[in-house]
């Protein structure tokens, strides 16, 4: 065996490739089952629970965690916080991949996926929240693509097209903030239609506000968490400016997340007071609600504050991971755990293992694409020919 062949063999058979390859093969098999036999073969969805893990996790969590794109772009281009500039491209890439995978996951969940464009050509009326969500997600995915496109254009060497794309940055950022405000809140508003199905501690007429405010927290925390992981795995791809600004990004975003978490905690308490649901806090669902509120909202707010005060970057990074987990729990509580809470356990929903495997498959595709892109395109560094 030649040396080159030995190196190739060594390069391809890594633990990452082996694990992600296995997951992708299993995912492809399940995908074939899903699209040939139907939803019933791979899910536990029913008339009681027509929305399951693919909506609760892939869509609601996916959209929330992809909020880093608009949060970071707004901070840098609208509020003039240029010291966070190096965080924009990784955040926009995470947002773009996140939204792409949300749409990809929707093709699995929608019974007739070829009808996904229907809202734009034969919808039932513009007052539909699903129409609003569909419109915003489609437009925002386009915006994220245009925001990220300078990186592949620099990689491919298309200078003139890249210049045009860069000129669009500011209007695209404004559009991104507007569209995100609309659909992040609308995803919460979807559940306003089911006041009798969602547990009163999670149901509130302020659900759209809760979803929007928590999406900002998710975006900030995801940028910190993604940055921590990237520094661990892709440090060799980062230029000096990126490495230098990294601590400032973590401290700045940690401070913002701490304050917004405190505000979020306050409006959630107002939600309980407004509905006079104090007596429900002593029930099993109430205790789970307190775990979410104290463990995943109040605690990270305090830990972020301690981290910022003491400039403890490690504490902030761990808190970011904890907060991301809290957002996942919140979205699953609203869509699955506290939904249909009054039904007998036999009629409650628990995802089929193939639903879980599909979600893992979709997340794995995201990680593989992220890795593919950042190892080739100027995401963590400025391209030497485009230092503007």
């Amino acid at each position, binding site marked *: 065996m030649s040396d080159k062949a030995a190196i190739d063999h060594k390069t391809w058979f890594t633990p990452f490739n082996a694990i992600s390859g296995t997951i992708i093969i299993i995912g492809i098999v399940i995908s074939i089952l899903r699209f040939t036999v139907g939803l019933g073969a791979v899910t536990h969805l029913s008339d009681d629970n027509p929305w399951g893990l693919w909506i609760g996790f892939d869509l609601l969590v996916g959209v929330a965690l992809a909020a880093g794109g608009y949060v970071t772009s707004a901070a840098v281009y609208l509020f003039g916080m240029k010291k966070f500039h190096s965080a924009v491209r990784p955040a926009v890439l995470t947002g773009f991949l996140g939204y792409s995978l949300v749409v990809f996951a929707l093709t699995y969940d929608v019974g007739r996926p070829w009808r996904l464009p229907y809202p734009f050509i034969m919808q039932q009326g513009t007052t539909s929240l699903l129409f609003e969500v569909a419109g915003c997600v489609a437009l925002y995915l386009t915006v994220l693509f245009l925001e990220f496109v300078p990186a592949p254009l620099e990689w491919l060497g298309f200078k003139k097209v890249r210049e045009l794309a860069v000129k669009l940055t500011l209007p695209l950022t404004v559009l991104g903030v507007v569209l995100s405000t609309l659909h992040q809140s609308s995803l919460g508003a979807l559940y306003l239609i089911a006041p009798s199905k969602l547990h009163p501690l999670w149901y509130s007429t302020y659900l759209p506000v809760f979803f929007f405010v928590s999406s900002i927290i998710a975006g900030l925390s995801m940028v910190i968490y993604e940055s921590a992981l990237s520094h661990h795995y892709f440090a060799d791809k980062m230029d000096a400016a990126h490495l230098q600004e990294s601590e400032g990004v973590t401290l700045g975003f940690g401070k913002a997340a701490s304050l917004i978490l*405190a505000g979020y905690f306050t409006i959630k308490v*107002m939600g309980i*007071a407004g509905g006079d649901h104090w007596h429900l806090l002593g029930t099993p669902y109430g205790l789970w609600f307190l775990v979410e509120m104290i463990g995943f909202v109040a605690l990270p707010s305090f830990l972020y504050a301690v981290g910022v005060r003491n400039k403890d970057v490690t504490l902030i990074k761990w808190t970011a991971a904890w907060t991301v987990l809290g957002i996942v729990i919140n979205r699953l509580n609203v869509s699955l755990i506290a939904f249909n809470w009054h039904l007998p356990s036999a009629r409650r929903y628990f995802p089929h293992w193939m639903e879980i495997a599909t979600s893992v498959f979709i997340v794995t595709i995201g990680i593989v694409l992220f890795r593919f892109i950042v190892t080739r395109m100027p995401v963590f560094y400025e391209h030497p020919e485009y230092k503007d």
Partner: protein
Amino acid sequence: METIYYTYQDFYTHTKGILYLLMIVSLFGIAGFWNFLTGKDDDNKENE
């Protein structure tokens, strides 16, 4: 224990009353938290 209300007037008088009190507490609470969050900013700047 759940309070029983006989009219919407009773319900809103009670819940709005609690909400207004909570808003006053929140105003002071958030201001105090902001002080805690930024308390060391000046010290950190001086050290730099």
